[in-house]
């Protein structure tokens, strides 16, 4: 129901798998919205004994179910921005062998993955599973501002106001897709917006 099949795309576009439990001395699980379902599916009692769950509900109701998994640590953040300093600290304190599980929207996973790789976590210890909204985190190539949760193409940059089209070109370092002015060659000629995968 909440799983979306992304169409084939170019080679810079991330692809996502399905979380699987892995052996490790500690486990960090980060999810937003219905990403909680993927955490619930992957969790094992053994994993939970050394697990830290960070959850950003975004108005969903999975708190009780996640708490019932009995992780060693549980935290609920009001937003990704509110949670990032904690994520940063946990990754900084991590010991060799930490397993990272990310589930939910592309924007959250991309940013958390960047925190993890910046902290020196090898990419082979990071798993990602997309769930829920297919909205994208977009960088305006012109003003460099980030617009979160973009659901339509084209869209208006929330910083400089240019009309941008949504590219599949993706930067892991910025954790965002690239938005490029759509009416540069014909000012004001902006096609009606539609869903990114419509």
């Amino acid at each position: 129901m909440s799983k979306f099949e992304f169409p084939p795309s170019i080679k810079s576009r991330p692809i996502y798998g399905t979380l699987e439990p892995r052996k490790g001395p500690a486990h960090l699980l980060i999810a937003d919205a219905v990403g909680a379902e993927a955490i619930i599916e992957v969790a094992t009692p053994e994993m939970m004994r050394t697990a830290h769950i960070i959850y950003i509900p975004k108005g969903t109701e999975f708190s009780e179910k996640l708490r019932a998994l009995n992780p060693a640590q549980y935290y609920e953040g009001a937003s990704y921005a509110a949670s990032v300093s904690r994520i940063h600290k946990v990754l900084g304190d991590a010991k060799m062998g930490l397993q990272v599980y990310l589930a939910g929207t592309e924007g959250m996973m991309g940013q958390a993955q960047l925190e993890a790789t910046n902290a020196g976590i090898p990419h082979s210890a990071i798993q990602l599973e997309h769930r829920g909204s297919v909205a994208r985190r977009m960088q305006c190539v012109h003003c460099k501002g980030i617009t979160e949760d973009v659901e339509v193409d084209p869209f208006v940059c929330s910083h400089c106001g240019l009309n941008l089209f949504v590219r599949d070109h993706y930067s892991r370092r910025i954790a965002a897709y690239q938005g490029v002015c759509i009416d540069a060659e014909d000012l004001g000629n902006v096609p009606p917006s539609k869903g990114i995968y419509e």
Partner: protein
Amino acid sequence: MTIQFNDETFRDDYSFHNSAWAIKRFPFPFHEDSYMYSVNMEQHRGGPAGSIYEKRFDVDEHYLSEMRDRAMVLADDPLRCQSLPHMTLAGWDLLELIMVSKSEDYPELFELHRDGNTWRWVNKPMGIDDTFTFLDEATLPYGPLEYITRQAQGDWCVLDQRDDNLWMDAGMVTTQADWSLDFDIGMNFFEWHAPVPLAHEKGIFVRALKFLLNIQQGSPARRLNWTMTVTPLLDTSPENYHKWGIQKTTLTPENIGQKQHLRVELQTFFRLPRSNALVFPIRAYLCSFQDLMTMPKWGRRLHRVIRDLPEELATYKGFIANRPMMLDYLSKFDDGLPTSDGIWPEFESEPPLKPSADS
């Protein structure tokens, strides 16, 4: 020969121009009457005297004006030059390679005096005479990559090599064909080429990467690439596309010969000694259609190449909308006669353009 440096601009009034010498040595990129991607690599070991292939890093009449334009781009947007923290040593490697090459290849323009790690660099055209300590960043006004590439034409990508891949981890990019270093920095070879159509399916990038991973010190390689630019704008960046994109709509049948430029990149690849990084200079040469048409062979060939180019490539290279107007113009310079193999103009032996029946 002594180079006479032009005083010209690549913006605003666009006073950029090519001398007869520059037109003759322009790297026309089509060796036959059609074009498709290929791994068109060859060794970069000099070339005909006076050609753009002769020296390791070609210096031409546009040098000073291009460096002035670069300084303006960097003042507007310092993100055009970036280096990830692990790439500083590669920056010193590059500084050494450029200083040694330029002082050996153009002794009348550049001098390098080395006494241990105390180096004196003299760049006569730019009026620079700096003494610094090699490998000590504090002794230069910029990092080593930025310092030397503010004095060297073309864009510079410095690629780290690890995990059997190349990573775009540093660069000076102010004259690019619509790609963003700031966005692509940190990407691997397949990721930063992701938006290119057709070439992935043809296996071009897999083969090119294999070739590049094996480039050895002292054995650089080269290839040509090309695109189209309306007006001789060097900074065709995505960052500023909302400003320059509109220029594509200003072509008319009257001004196309003067305004439409073929933009050719001489791409070279050098292994760097200490860092094992690969430096990938992308040197852009611009030539207006009307200047290209002074060579009969190029006139005939350019018409045939543009006419027969697959639609995906014309779209990717950004001239699909203007292609009909280009063909109207170019067809007047194609009388159907055969052309000789290779890229060189062969002005002496190629037959002059036959006047068409209706003119």
